[in-house]
């Protein structure tokens, strides 16, 4: 039987505020345990939460970026459950009236087609603390520094039909939240975490199958692998005559499998109700306008502009708009060196490879836009061949100075002077009469031999086009 997969994602992204969503405790990552947890975060009696304006502003920016309905009036609710890293016994979240309503994003599929994915809602909520289960003589250690950190939970429609689509959507959301500056999206530090709801059904069936939820996935690679595993597991269960049990599962990266999560709680029954400590959140037009007025040109718009204005392929334009910093870098290099395609090729090729190898992002690149533009200008004006340029690139990367300094110091200037190349070629022809005779008799392959000789004589610095042209002329019978 042929099966169809249905996936929806819930993404928790940490909002880039300096203080917590309901308290004045700082949100700095990596502080000593419990040094950033105040009375409100600890849920001590008699305290009252007060909402952080910046968290609201960042949520509004996201809503606008995905073209969503913004709720003029939204409500905070208590989600009740017991766990030691949730000292109040409830998490403050939004339930019936989230701040961001229905929106959408476009994802690019492998075959180049675009697909619209619906976003059901995005709501503000507080994070819980962290439980450490090892090394405490059979006890659990609790760090409440993260308790009360502002999160935006972004819920998708069940529009995703494969693990690849789910990853493309998750990457898209990740790109947007970083692009508009509402989250650092740092996955190692837990600033971007994903839950996946997944079910399968026979192709053609319109009703949804029973779903399972895979919780707390913190990398795109794990998301894909967890989904691949879980889909196969569900199909095996159904084809073996079994039934899918609605449950929460965890992905174990080491064993590459999902496992049922045993919890002491039976059914999830959170008994949501409006939080009496918080009044309805009302967004007036001025606040919304101020929050969204300086939204940057969004990634899809910028990608389309790169294709249109610079003649780039959708693939190249897509790579260059992976982050706003990279897109800015590209535009700076292109403007300075005057050749956008050359800039795109070098940034997506040589530079991307070097950054990747060094484990750096573009912001930390030792080669600034000015430096790369300086190098590309020397390719554009014929000073450097592609091959020489790579040598110069490596030297600049290693901190040996800018392009011109490296070219001077290493004598890497391309030889494009016919007056120098011609006598060289004549001497080579004179020294290799046998090869010349064979070439003229039709052994075309020997052309490469002559090119090699010239390059050897010039340490690879002769202009390849010129060498080809002069050689063809001189070798002609």
């Amino acid at each position, binding site marked *: 039987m042929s099966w169809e997969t249905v996936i929806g994602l819930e993404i928790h992204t940490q909002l880039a505020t300096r203080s917590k969503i309901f308290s004045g405790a700082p949100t700095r990552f990596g502080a*000593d345990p419990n040094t950033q947890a105040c009375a409100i975060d600890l849920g001590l009696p008699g305290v009252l939460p007060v909402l952080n304006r910046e968290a609201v502003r960042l949520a509004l920016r996201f809503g606008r970026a995905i073209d969503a309905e913004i709720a003029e009036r939204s409500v905070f609710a208590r989600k009740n459950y017991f766990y030691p890293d949730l000292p109040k016994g409830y998490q403050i979240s939004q339930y019936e009236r989230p701040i961001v309503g229905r929106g959408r994003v476009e994802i690019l599929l492998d075959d180049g087609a675009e697909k619209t994915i619906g976003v059901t809602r995005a709501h503000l909520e507080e994070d819980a603390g962290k439980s450490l289960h090892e090394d405490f003589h059979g006890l659990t250690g609790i760090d409440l520094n993260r308790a009360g950190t502002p999160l935006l939970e972004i819920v998708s429609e069940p529009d995703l039909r494969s693990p690849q689509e789910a990853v493309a959507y998750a990457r898209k959301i990740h790109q947007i939240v970083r692009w508009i500056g509402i989250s650092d999206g740092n996955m190692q530090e837990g600033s971007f975490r994903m839950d996946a709801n997944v079910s399968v059904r026979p192709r053609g069936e319109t009703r949804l199958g029973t779903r399972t939820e895979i919780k707390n996935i913190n990398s795109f690679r794990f998301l894909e692998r967890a989904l691949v595993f879980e889909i196969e597991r569900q199909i095996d269960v159904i084809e073996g005559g079994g039934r899918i049990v609605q449950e929460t599962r965890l992905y174990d990266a080491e064993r590459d499998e999902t496992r049922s999560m045993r919890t002491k709680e039976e059914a999830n029954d959170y008994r949501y109700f409006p939080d009496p400590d918080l*009044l309805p959140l009302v967004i007036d037009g001025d606040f919304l306008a101020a929050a969204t007025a300086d939204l940057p040109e969004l990634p899809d718009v910028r990608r389309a502009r790169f294709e249109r204005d610079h003649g780039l392929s959708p693939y190249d334009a897509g790579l260059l708009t992976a982050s706003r910093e990279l897109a800015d870098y590209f535009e700076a290099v292109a403007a300075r060196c005057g050749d956008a395609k050359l800039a795109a090729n070098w940034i997506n090729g040589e530079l991307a490879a070097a950054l990747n190898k060094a484990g750096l992002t573009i912001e930390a690149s030792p080669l600034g836009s000015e430096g790369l533009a300086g190098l590309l200008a020397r390719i554009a004006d014929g000073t450097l061949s592609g091959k020489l340029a790579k040598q110069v690139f490596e030297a600049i990367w290693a901190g040996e100075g800018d392009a011109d300094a490296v070219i001077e110091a290493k004598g890497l200037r391309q030889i494009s002077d016919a007056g120098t190349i011609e006598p060289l070629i004549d001497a080579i022809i004179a020294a290799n009469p046998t090869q010349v005779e064979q070439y003229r008799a039709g052994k075309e392959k020997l052309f490469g031999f002559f090119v090699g000789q010239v390059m050897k004589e010039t340490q690879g610095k002769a202009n390849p086009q010129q060498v080809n042209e002069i050689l063809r002329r001189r070798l002609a019978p």
Partner: protein
Amino acid sequence: MPLAPSDVAKIAHLARLAIDEDEAARYATDLSKILDLVARMEAVDTTEVLPMAHPLEMNQRLREDEPSEPDGRALFQGIAPLTEDGLYLVPKVIE
């Protein structure tokens, strides 16, 4: 919509309230009466009424995003039964 004592027992468990069987039966009767009252109110036409999320006719005040709370760990952990390396220690919660 009357509540059964077993519904009460389930809710009590979720809320970690210790109640015995007699109490469960009594709460079932009392809570059912409240639900009956709500059911009677369902008959009222509320199409023009904004759902009430809070009894106060006010909107949420917003705070500026300024860290203002100093580290109070020593103070707070002074009343905790068990701590180590700055962490609160609790009975193990997963097997």
